[in-house]
């Protein structure tokens, strides 16, 4: 029985080897939209998929990407993003970002807000992000 327990412990640790670094959020008043950015590093031997994000400061949180066509820019939701083994995915201005809409509270500069990122293998990762004007 103890070997079965150890097996699941190792499996859990291996599947949860996802790091989130440099997390930050743009300041915005309540009812505004804002964006969350970070670098996600997959240290596992297998790919993982980010498919959802959630936060206590917004009821509408979506994975988004900014795209450019000629001299026009737009945004669109993205259903999921796959992070290859031993690879990273960067959420940055002008690219992928987590959109947080209609904020329930003001995200003021120099505060910390929490966001949950959901991965198919790693499960839920809770991340603390600094609110700042520009990284």
């Amino acid at each position, binding site marked *: 029985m103890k070997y079965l327990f150890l097996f699941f412990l190792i499996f859990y640790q291996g599947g949860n080897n996802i790091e989130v670094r440099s997390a930050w959020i*743009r*300041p*915005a*008043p309540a009812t*505004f*939209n*804002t*964006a969350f950015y970070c670098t996600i590093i997959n240290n596992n031997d297998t790919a993982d998929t980010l498919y959802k994000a959630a936060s206590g400061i917004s*009821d*509408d949180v979506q994975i*988004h990407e*900014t795209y*450019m066509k000629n*001299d*026009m*820019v*737009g*945004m*669109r939701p993205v259903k999921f993003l796959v992070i290859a083994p031993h690879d990273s995915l960067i959420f940055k*201005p*002008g690219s992928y*970002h987590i*959109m*947080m*809409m*209609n904020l329930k509270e*003001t995200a*003021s*500069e120099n505060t910390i807000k929490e966001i949950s990122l959901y991965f198919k293998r790693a499960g839920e990762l809770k991340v603390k992000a600094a609110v700042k*004007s*520009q990284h």
Partner: protein
Amino acid sequence: MKKYLFLIPGILLISGCGNHFNLNENVTDKNLTLINQDSTKVIYPEIIKNKIAVIGFLYTHCPDICPLTTHNMQLVEEKLSKDELNKVKFYLISFDPERDTPSILKQYAEVRNINMTHWELLTGNKNTIDTLLNEFNVKAIHDDTVYNKQGQPEYFIIHTDRISLVDEDGILRKNYKGSTANPEELVNDIKYLE
């Protein structure tokens, strides 16, 4: 003929002086009433004349590109001296007048610590804003509207990514991609105009 050859370098030099900028368009031939972040009516183009105008175009529901444009303009402001700043004014014009009311613009400015001494955020009725966007060849197209859990309309806007530089006479001299504009380039262009 040969005796006039020495004039050629001088002529070339003089003709080259006007070519620093790639644009020379009058953007002040429409009289428009706009509203600023304090709900004060202002008249365009009077509001932008007699100062060098750095104009960004945005909508406040945009969390990604438009804040970059604003940030780049703030970087330009930081790099100018006090004397240089006295000759410059920064404007943010919203192409989402339905949602970007004066109080929304004011909140946008406050949360970004925008120094209102040198800035003005502008909105107006839809027809007025459309006319103004036309002057600058800025496009803003609404995406599909959805309704959030609170029953409020949510839509995104596909838009031109733009900062425009207008001289004191209301002549558009240069356009930049707002989100990726090089603040140093803008500062140099402003100094050229001063």
